[in-house]
């Protein structure tokens, strides 16, 4: 039906098609378990809708808790994908070819749950559309809604564009869901002109998406920083949140890649070198994160204005100290001691570091949101906030549903960009050779 010469599937990449064409019982079991969590989350949420937010552990003055923590955390994780993938693409990092897709999917999927966390937190979610009908543009929450919408749209486009040649490949194989792939492939046949347009579009999106991604987490931080509350009202929050977001994002990406590699037997595609390089990036982010955390807390401590000190002390030696120091261990001590040793920057080593970082960064968000609220200036504190079972189940449900969506994606679309791998095999060697020889002194080549 289409001339298949241009997009001839290479026989060597057969393993990349397997997840979409063969389904093992293991998949059904995983999906069933995840679905259980989803159903539980829905049940608990409907109970919360029926009864009111009283079923949470929130009180006066801790009006925001786990839900808002999740919001900041999930939006942070979303920086794994689009941003990392865009930066690596722009830098022509050749080792990116097998990880970009997996990264971009994280962004799109996890953003849904970031936005969902805010909806769950609303006392009147049925009125959420008031944000569109009666927006107050002075409110950072409205800025947030705008930037997250733009980011989600941009990320979907940026995920979809590099997917088109793969969809054409799947269509031409003609095995499963051909009509579906044919529709989505938009008639791509891999002609020179189509290739040129596609590559241009991907390049443009890669550049556009970077400032959008940076703006998103900056605006998330402004939800806090724009208020006059002690230890929220800080100019460092924008970049601090962005660094934290990229940090937790890479960690989530490493965990996702390791699972994909293991389950779908992609050791040939996701090699130690990918984990080593991501591990190095992670190490840089860990150091940056520590630098920001240190600068923020030392400035507060040295200035020692009483209302900020009360909150700082509740973090470092008060009721929130266990969480604070766990965070420091998880985000700095463990990852840096693992990742600074080349021997340990293996798949296992980076995954262990990433697991610690994911937990640590969730705690970091919690430590930012809750203590500032728990010690208001005038009203006496009412003890510490413990999340209720409802909040915990909804959090677990969100996490499980995110994983479920991700798993389903891998069953329908190739989780490793097949055409980019093939292109890399065919062209990249030569390109890199040319690029490197251009750096060297010697006679200029006339193109």
């Amino acid at each position, binding site marked *: 039906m289409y001339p298949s010469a241009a997009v001839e599937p290479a026989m060597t990449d057969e393993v990349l098609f397997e997840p979409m064409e063969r389904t093992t019982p293991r998949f059904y079991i995983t999906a069933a378990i995840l679905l259980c969590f989803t159903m539980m989350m829905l049940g608990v949420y409907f109970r919360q809708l029926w*009864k*009111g*937010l*009283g079923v949470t552990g*929130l*009180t*006066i*003055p801790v*009006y*925001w808790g786990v839900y808002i923590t999740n919001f900041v955390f999930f939006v942070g994780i979303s920086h794994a994908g689009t941003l990392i993938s865009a930066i690596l693409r722009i830098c022509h990092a050749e080792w990116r070819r097998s990880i970009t897709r997996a990264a971009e999917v994280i962004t799109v999927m996890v953003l849904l749950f970031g936005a969902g966390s*805010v909806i769950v*937190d*609303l*006392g*009147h*979610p049925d*009125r*959420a559309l*008031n*944000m569109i009908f*009666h*927006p*107050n543009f*002075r*409110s*950072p*929450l*409205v800025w947030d*809604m705008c930037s997250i919408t733009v980011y989600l749209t941009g990320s979907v486009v940026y995920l979809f564009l590099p997917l088109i040649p793969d969809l054409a490949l799947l269509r031409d194989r003609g095995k499963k869901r051909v009509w579906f792939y044919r529709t989505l492939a938009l008639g791509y046949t891999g002609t020179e002109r189509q290739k040129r347009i596609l590559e241009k579009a991907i390049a443009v999106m890669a550049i556009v998406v970077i400032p959008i991604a940076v703006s998103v987490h900056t605006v998330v931080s402004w*939800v806090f920083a*724009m*208020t*006059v*509350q002690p230890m929220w009202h800080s100019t460092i929050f924008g970049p601090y949140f962005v660094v934290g977001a990229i940090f937790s994002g890479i960690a989530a990406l490493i965990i996702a890649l390791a699972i994909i590699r293991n389950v779908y037997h992609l050791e040939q595609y996701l090699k130690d070198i990918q984990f080593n390089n991501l591990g190095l990036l992670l190490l840089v982010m860990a150091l940056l994160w520590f630098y920001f955390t240190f600068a923020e807390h030392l400035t507060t401590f040295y200035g020692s204005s009483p209302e900020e000190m009360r909150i700082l002390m509740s973090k470092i030696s008060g009721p929130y100290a266990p969480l604070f120091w766990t965070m420091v261990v998880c985000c700095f001590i463990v990852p840096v001691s693992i990742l600074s040793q080349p021997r340990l920057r293996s798949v296992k080593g980076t995954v262990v570091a990433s697991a610690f970082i994911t937990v640590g960064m969730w705690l970091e968000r919690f430590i930012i949101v809750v203590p500032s*609220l728990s010690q*208001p*200036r*005038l*009203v*006496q504190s*009412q*003890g510490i906030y413990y999340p209720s079972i409802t909040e915990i189940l909804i959090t677990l449900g969100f996490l499980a549903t995110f994983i479920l969506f991700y798993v389903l994606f891998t069953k329908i679309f190739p989780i490793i960009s097949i055409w980019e791998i093939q292109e890399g095999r065919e062209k990249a060697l030569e390109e890199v050779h040319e690029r490197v020889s251009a750096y060297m002194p010697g006679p200029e080549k006339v193109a």
Partner: protein
Amino acid sequence: MARWGMVIDLDKCTACQACVVACQTENNVAFMKPSEAQMGRSIYWIKLTAFQEGKYPESKTRFLPLPCQHCDNPPCIKVCPVDATNITPDGIVRQIFARCIGCRYCTTACPYTVRYFNWYKPDWPEPMTEAQNHDVSMRPKGVVEKCTLCHHRLQKARETAIAEKRPLAPGEYIPACVESCPPKAMFFGDLEDPNSEVSKLSRSPRAFRLLEELGTKPKVIYLSEVERSGSNVS
């Protein structure tokens, strides 16, 4: 246009909480189950706050009735994503219950912690429904509420004045807390009018506003205790 303000003389305040009770009945502030109250979820549009000063045995507890400060520059209305809270031309910070989405951004942004959230559907024991004030709307679950300076009383007084074709007289509009105060420690009126009692008191050397350094410009003004301010001027 008037600029409504309140003066609370801490020297006269006996911390009897009559203002709190008057406010609860006037504004249909819902009852809390004991378990909820224990969690610290009680709603008080005006609340008596205690401050500990010094350490035992020289310690002293001071009390401060704390309503919404009705700031001229309120941090809460800026952050509301749906314009559900705003400030009237005469300076009253209002809450629109029917528009509030319950995101609680205003409650976290308010430095005075005087905004309250309805965690559940308000609980009204059977006989108490008889005591409800029909001038004040009931709140559904999941919205934020706060002191309105008994805005409904202003509306009523204004309507009467218009019907009688005369301007609003001073003292015609007074919130329930001020009206009920047994030692007459609370004053209410137009801060714009230089001859009003509140305006004069607000210029007293004892006058101070809470967290003035934040630039919120509160319209609730406190008169400090004489023993503390070291001055005898009232």
